[in-house]
């Protein structure tokens, strides 16, 4: 088992957002987590990546046999967890290239692999940039600075391609993308599917799942997984929407 979430409860500022999540992801599987706004999707992705400000009040998360929640964000990243951000942060003054070289070498050190020198890294970066059609000038610029929405998302997948995570969490990677950018990003993600890698694809819309076809789909409503199924569940939701589930939860 790559990722095992058991009865996960999380509160933010005293309010319970996740109310008992169970989820298992095996290597090679792509799981989609769908849900309406405010259902807890982003909270789940942030908690898995280790962001501060969330109180885990119950349950546990095991990643690759280890207690994920006991690790710092940087430890998780070194151990192969990757979060593609919904809102990638602009960092003026820090070049994409150097930032990623530091990241990839931190990961390689953790794996006991040789660090890449500048030339090796650039070779790798150029190769991976093609995957998401990221312009060479963008990989040399400051991290995300002045990037369009689509460029930021492509930069996330570019980073993922370089870091080669074991578990990739894609947090609303489709938000703000036009159809062409969506194709490019999805192509990048699909080419990174592998038997060793698990993915959690978090999205509000079914649209993304036309391109990144999941093995499993989970519907998250009000902090709980209310239904799980195969890829056809996403289609069903597209037709019916979340309203039915929300009504059930509200006890209407």
């Amino acid at each position, binding site marked *: 088992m790559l990722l095992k979430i058991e009865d996960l409860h999380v509160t933010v500022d005293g309010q319970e957002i996740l109310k008992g999540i169970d989820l298992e992801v095996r290597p090679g599987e792509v799981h989609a987590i769908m849900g309406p706004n405010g259902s807890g999707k982003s909270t789940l992705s942030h908690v898995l990546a280790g962001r501060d400000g969330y109180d885990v009040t119950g349950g546990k998360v095991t990643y690759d046999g280890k207690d994920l929640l006991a690790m710092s964000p940087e430890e998780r990243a070194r151990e192969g967890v990757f979060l593609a951000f919904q809102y*990638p942060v602009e*960092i003026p*003054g820090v070049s994409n290239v150097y930032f990623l070289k530091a990241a990839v070498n*931190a990961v390689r050190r953790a794996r006991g692999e040789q660090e890449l020198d500048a030339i090796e890294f650039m070779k790798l970066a150029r190769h991976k940039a093609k995957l998401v059609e990221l312009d060479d000038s963008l990989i040399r610029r400051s991290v995300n600075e002045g990037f369009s929405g689509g460029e930021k998302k492509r930069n996330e997948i570019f980073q993922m391609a370089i870091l080669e995570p074991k578990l990739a969490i894609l947090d609303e990677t489709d938000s703000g993308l036009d159809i062409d950018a969506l194709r490019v990003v999805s192509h990048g993600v699909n080419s990174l599917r592998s038997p060793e890698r698990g993915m959690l694809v978090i999205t509000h819309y079914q649209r993304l799942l036309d391109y990144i076809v999941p093995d499993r789909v989970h519907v998250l409503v009000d902090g709980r997984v209310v239904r799980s199924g195969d890829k056809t569940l996403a289609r069903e939701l597209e037709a019916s929407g979340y309203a039915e589930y929300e009504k059930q939860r509200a006890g209407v």
Partner: protein
Amino acid sequence: MTMGLTIPTEVRAGGPDWLAELRRQAAGRLRETGFPTRKTESWRFTSVKPVTSVPFEPAPVDEAAAARWAEQHLGPDDTDRLILVNGRLASGPVPRATALAWGTGPDATGAVGVEGVLGRIAAAEHFAALNAVMFEEVLLVRIPDGAVLERPIHVVHVAAPGSGPTAAYPRVLVLAGARSEAKLIETYLTAPGERCLANAVTEVWVGPEARLDHTRVQEGAESGFHVATLAVRQERASSYASRAVTLGGALARLDLGVLLDGEGAECVLDGVYHVRGADHVDHQTFIDHAKPHCTSSESYRGILDGQGHAVFNGIIVVRRGAQRSQAHQENRNLLLSDDAVIHTKPHLEIDADDVSCSHGATIGAIDEDALFYLRARAIPEAQARDILTFAFVHALLHRIPHRPVHERLAEALLTRLPHGESIRELV
């Protein structure tokens, strides 16, 4: 009687009559006002006691050794470099075919155009008055009309200690002739050893349609006291940029004044400061929009760590009749420690009605979103903090036009950050 920095009763002899008169007036003014106290508005947050309670005196030093130390400290930077030790020219390049000319002492004060300018751009107040009384030599940097200097001029000021607390009174006059274009760098360093006071004054005249880019660096030392005045007067359609970089110091004070004295003049005032430990850094800027159609753009950013203390007091005045003035002022501060202190006061006074002015100040901590982003990419928290700290001021450092200087300063800043070494290749 307390021992300390004394107000001189006699002025230095020598030089032309007008200079003697200038010194007498400055001495008179200083005796009248005394040194500033915490009751003096612009000194509210900076006590001068650490300076005035120490018997700083000019002292003989090994100038050649101090100049060598500075050369080594700075490394090569592809500039025409002059080194002043305690205000006296210790080494400099032979003027080449460039249009640069300079002189010291009587040579400079006797030069054409100096009388009536020296001591007239910087008001003889407090420490500027003390400098006027005490300076030994004037370094004159004259850029002839129409000259375009390819190589930057780099004036390095070394405060070098003698056997006791040592005072130096560096004095520079820059005359940028009409339509000239030049880059000037001034770097103030404190050589290791006993306590030093550098009481510096630089006056800059920017002639009609001239362009001058002036980087001013003060690298602090725990033993270094630095109280300086930089006064600029701009003529019609001239362009002046000041890049003030202040890296710590036991006490580092800069009074920077720019008088926009001709229509269509424009100035840019960039500033970067870093305090840590017990550093105390104080920037007072004053931009005077005296004529119509002038533009000023000021952007100061500070990093505050340890028990460091910084002051930013920025005043912009738009005089009556200075229509179509545009003034923008910003001071942003990154507070890294609960014990660090920043006093910031942006201030606008507008006496004209057709103007476009804005100002603002912020004080904030490291952006948590950015911190998490870096950590989520395997970068350890301590390094991530330093990366974001460095990035906070990077854009301003990057605007320093001469690459070797901006790279050296980036390096100097990195060495001051807790984990700067480990992020060197990142930035």
